[in-house]
C-alpha cells in the first residue's frame, strides 16, 4: 500500500512538473513577444489603441467551427468597437503562426490597447473565459453584455 501511494505521489509530482514547465515556456514566449514589438507589424488589420483578440485558426479545425468561432463572434457582438478581433488562417500565414509560437489550433492571444500580448490560450477558450481575460488584461467590459450570438452564426455540432 505504501509503495502504491509513493508511486502515485511520484506520478502526480512528475505530471505537475510537466505542467509547470509548459506554463513557464508559455510565459517566456509571451515575454519574448512583448520585447519584439515587430510581431504586430505583420498583422494587416491591426488598429492602434484598441485591445484585441488575435485568433489563430485553420479551415480544417473542427473545434474552431463548433466552439471557438461562435465564442469569438459572441464577443464581437458584446464588445462592439471596444474590441478588435484579428483572425489568422495559420495554414496560410505560417510565418505569423511561427512568429507567435502557435503550438496548436485554435490559439487565442489577448492583446492590450498598447499592443502588448498579455495572455495566450493554447486550445479552446470559452467566451466567458475570454471575457474574464479581457477584463483582467485589457481592462475592458462588454458594451452590450446581453448580446446573444448573431443569428447568422450557427455552431456546427
Amino acid at each position, binding site marked *: 500500500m505504501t*509503495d*502504491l501511494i509513493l*508511486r*502515485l505521489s*511520484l*506520478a502526480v509530482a*512528475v*505530471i505537475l512538473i*510537466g505542467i509547470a514547465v*509548459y506554463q513557464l515556456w508559455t510565459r517566456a514566449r509571451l515575454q519574448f513577444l512583448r520585447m519584439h514589438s515587430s510581431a504586430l507589424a505583420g498583422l494587416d488589420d491591426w488598429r492602434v489603441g484598441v485591445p484585441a483578440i488575435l485568433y489563430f485558426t*485553420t*479551415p*480544417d*479545425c*473542427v473545434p474552431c467551427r463548433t466552439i471557438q468561432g461562435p465564442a469569438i463572434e459572441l464577443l464581437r457582438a458584446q464588445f462592439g468597437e471596444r474590441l478588435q478581433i484579428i483572425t489568422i*488562417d*495559420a*495554414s*496560410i500565414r*505560417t*510565418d505569423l*503562426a*511561427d512568429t507567435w509560437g*502557435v*503550438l*496548436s*489550433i485554435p490559439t487565442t492571444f489577448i492583446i492590450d490597447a498598447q499592443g502588448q500580448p498579455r495572455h495566450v490560450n493554447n486550445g479552446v477558450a470559452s467566451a466567458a473565459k475570454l471575457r474574464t481575460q479581457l477584463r483582467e488584461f485589457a481592462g475592458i467590459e462588454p458594451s452590450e453584455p446581453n448580446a446573444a450570438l448573431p443569428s447568422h452564426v450557427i455552431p456546427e455540432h
Partner: protein
Amino acid sequence: MNTQWREIDHSDLKVNQSTIITLLIIAFVLNAVWLVALVAGVMGLGTLRRQTGFRIIYAGWLKPRGIVKPQLIPDNPQPHLFAQGMGGTVLLVAVIAFALGNAIIGWALTWLVVALAALNLFVGFCAGCFVYYWLARLRVPGFSVQPLPGTFPGMRPKGRTS
C-alpha cells in the same frame, strides 16, 4: 524533394498518444511491468501494420460515437510510424531492463516515452519524426521523406499545404 504527404487524421494520433501516456502512468503506479510490455507490443504491432497501435479505441469507439471528431491535416505518415516504432523499441528495452532486474532504468525509459508522447500531444512536437527527418537529411537509406514546406521538422503541420 520527396514529400509524399496525404491527409492524416491527427485525432487518431492524439488518441493513440493519450492512451500510451495513460497506460504507462497506470503501469508505473501499479508497478505493472506486464502493462509496459503490452503497450510496447501494441506499438510494435501497430507499426508493422502501418497504423497507430491503439487505433481500435479511436476508429472503433470514439469516432463512430462522435466523441472525438476527425482532424485531417496534410502530413507525412512515415515519420509518425517511425516515431511509434521508436517508442515501442524504447519500451522493449525498458522491459528487458526490468527482466534483468534494473527497475530504475526500466522506469526511466518508460517515463521518457511518456514525456515524448506528452510533448507530441500537448506541444505538437514529434521527437521521433524529428529524428526521422534528420536521418532523411543525412541521406540514410530508407529515410527519404522531407518535412512539409514551411514546417519545422517534427512540428505538427498547421493545416493545408497549398
